[in-house]
């Protein structure tokens, strides 16, 4: 199985995502200017500050040639994981509902947060148990998830809320403390915290993030059988 990790000008956590993905399968970087997704079975849109967050975070990256291919890949059911800036890009690209606004505390904040798994049946949390807590670091200034009431109700009915900041820990003020959501079909997932920074206990004390990559591997290999 192979992960493809996109790389935009200004991406910061793409190498971290690459290294994390390589713990469970093959992985390769995909340059933003390339349309060829190199046979990747799953795509990771990484964290960072693509295009300097000019205009809006993720607003420019969503037009990259590689993203055109990712949008088509997602429409065909391919798995796409968006982390932090990647989540922002996916919302801008219309692959996920809602938007990420400025943090309620109006500051860039870096903090280890606890996430509660709200939906464990899908391709991104299949290796987690329902209600399980994941310890994962979050670091962002624009992470307040927002969607209008109607959209939220529809998402709730369809089980699209995947991760929540446990115990009122969200510094960004996301509606319903939502940390990660997926699309209706369940093949596109975005979250603000960084699972790629929780894959080795030596570097951060938690390997909970590995479960997300592991879930994706299981989903891809399961689909092949």
């Amino acid at each position, binding site marked *: 199985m192979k992960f493809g990790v996109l790389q935009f*000008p*200004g*991406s*910061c*956590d793409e*190498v*971290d995502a690459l*290294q994390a993905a390589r713990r469970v399968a093959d992985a390769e970087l995909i340059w933003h200017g390339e349309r060829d997704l190199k046979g990747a079975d799953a795509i990771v849109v990484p964290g*960072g*500050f693509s*295009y*300097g*967050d*000019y205009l809006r975070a993720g607003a420019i990256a969503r037009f990259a040639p590689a993203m055109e291919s990712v949008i088509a890949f997602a429409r065909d059911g391919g798995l796409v994981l968006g982390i932090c800036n990647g989540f922002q890009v996916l919302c801008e690209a219309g692959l996920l509902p809602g938007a990420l606004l400025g943090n309620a505390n109006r*500051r*860039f*904040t*870096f*903090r280890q947060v606890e996430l509660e798994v709200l939906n464990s049946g899908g391709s991104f949390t299949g290796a987690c148990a329902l209600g399980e807590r994941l310890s994962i*670091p979050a*670091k962002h200034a624009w992470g307040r998830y927002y969607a209008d009431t109607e959209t939220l109700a529809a998402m709730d009915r369809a089980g699209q809320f995947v991760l929540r900041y446990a115990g009122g820990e969200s510094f960004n003020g996301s509606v319903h403390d939502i940390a990660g959501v997926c699309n209706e079909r369940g093949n596109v997932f975005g979250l603000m915290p*960084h699972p*790629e*920074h929780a894959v*080795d206990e*030596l*570097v*951060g004390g938690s390997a909970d993030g590995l479960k997300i990559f592991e879930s994706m591997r299981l989903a891809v290999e399961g689909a092949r059988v």
Partner: protein
Amino acid sequence: MAAAATLPTLEDALALGLTAAEYELVCEKQDGPPNVLELAMYSLLWSEHCAYKHSKKLLRTLPTEGKHVVMGPGENAGAVDVGGGLVCAFKVESHNHPSAVEPFQGAATGVGGILRDVFAVGARPIAVLDSLRFGEPAGEGAARTRYLLDGAVSGIGHYGNSIGVPTIGGEVYFEGPYEQNCLVNAMALGLAERERLVRSAAAGEGNVLVLFGASTGRDGIGGASVLASAELGDGGSDKRPTVQVGDPFEEKKLLECSLELLQRELLVSLQDLGAAGLTSSAAEMASKGEVGIEIDIARVPLREADMEPFEVMVSESQERMLCVVEPDKLDAVLALCEKWEVGGSAIGTVTSTGRVRVTQDGELVGDMPVRALVDDCPLYDLQPAKPSEPVYPPPVATLGSATTPSETLLALLSCPNIASRRPLFEQYDAIVQSRTVRRPEQADAAVLVLEDAEKASARGARVLATVRGFGATSDAHHLTAPHPDGAGATAAITKALRDSGLEPEDIDYINAHGTSTPLNDRAETKAIKAALGDHASRVPVSSTKSAIGHLLGAAGAVEATATILALRDRIAPPTLGWEEREEGMDLDYVPNQARPLDVNGGPAIGLSNAFGFGGHNVVLCLEA
């Protein structure tokens, strides 16, 4: 440009910060009065900031060489060998005055500049740290202090976070005298393979000078503004200098482009543009290489129209680098600049004239000897004189013998110099690049992984030791004393053995916490006996603190290293200064003389004890 009619005068030179004697010297070096461009360049290169003219003589007395020093003073950053074919490059710089004027951008561009210095030598920046000083955040100057603090911390975070370099540590202290002169020091640390380090000396007659990165504007043209008014062109174009604004996105692209250029071996040398912009970069590259340089300012990409030649040469626009390229590699260099979407332009050539010549569309607008610009700046001796009275009043004590313990506690907790720095360091990404083992507040120093096990074994690195296991306990027995029976320590040793799957008999040596205090040594002796039973009396137990003292930071790490070396070399280090045996202290403390370790032909296994007040106890079990 007009001819000699508009030559600047002595008054202009004085206004630019040169002394009358220095101006005389410049005229001598130039065989006549310098023109506007030339005077601007001399005034900058002979300024305190560029020439260190009042401190160079003192700086030269400092030691600069050592077994592990790979790059000493004179290059963009210093570098030391850290083993495994790797070097760490690092540098600290202050940005006090810009931060006092505009704290966000002053601090941000401080970080930007120091990062450029590190990747200019070919090292990927892996960490940023900062050291800050401000006035009191309460009382009269409070509003300004808070403004500077908030701005500086946001600025550091903004730049470091956006460029993907973790800010892993720092310090901030508040004291009245800093109100008028805040300190904003930025440090950057980089990692490189030793063969990849690059120097800044220009070389090779006919080689091309390429300027890449952001375009050039009027940023930071301060003192030279006097000349701006002397050069009235037509029209009312605004020539006011602008404050330096950093763009970390531009620098991120610049960083990746620079590192890839070096990785592909496309460059002869590299230099970043900092204070005095092209003037200092070009002149210093030429000076180090003992060559000449010719620059056509018409080829410099500008972001504002109608810039004068001197403005182009002294602009401090951020996020620019200058490199020297062999002509047959020029196309590849420009192509790489295009890939990373940074502007790249061939702006000049390396010559053998020993002079810096500046042209504009073929016309010579400035001509100076390199040596005069860089090496011949007069150096001065400081004449320090102790002031008759203290410059700053001593701090007023606010706690006296009359203060109650609870008042004292509250005063201490509310003291900004003791209070938690969490609101500050939470604004920094401390983990990007996945190297950070200890984040701010998790330890007294940040800890980074330089090389992972896979890479180490791939290059055939020699493993010095393995951590078989460890035990850690934490208790709240007493603020400053361990449990007299060493209960926490006993538990830590026992846990370490269990975690390692070993028996007491497997231990060949113990590096004790051994602070030489009655409280620790007695408790530790009891703990060793309780955990190891009969074997305790057979194991050599020594304290290396007897040789180096109790280090104020990383004591455990240093002693673990000593333990590893002891095990590797099969030598038990002595407990120095051991004089007489006390009642109940009957272990083998390896008194005063090192001795061989007897490990019966097997691996050498030892324990490294580190105990702290509170207490917290850690025992590492190491095998070599």
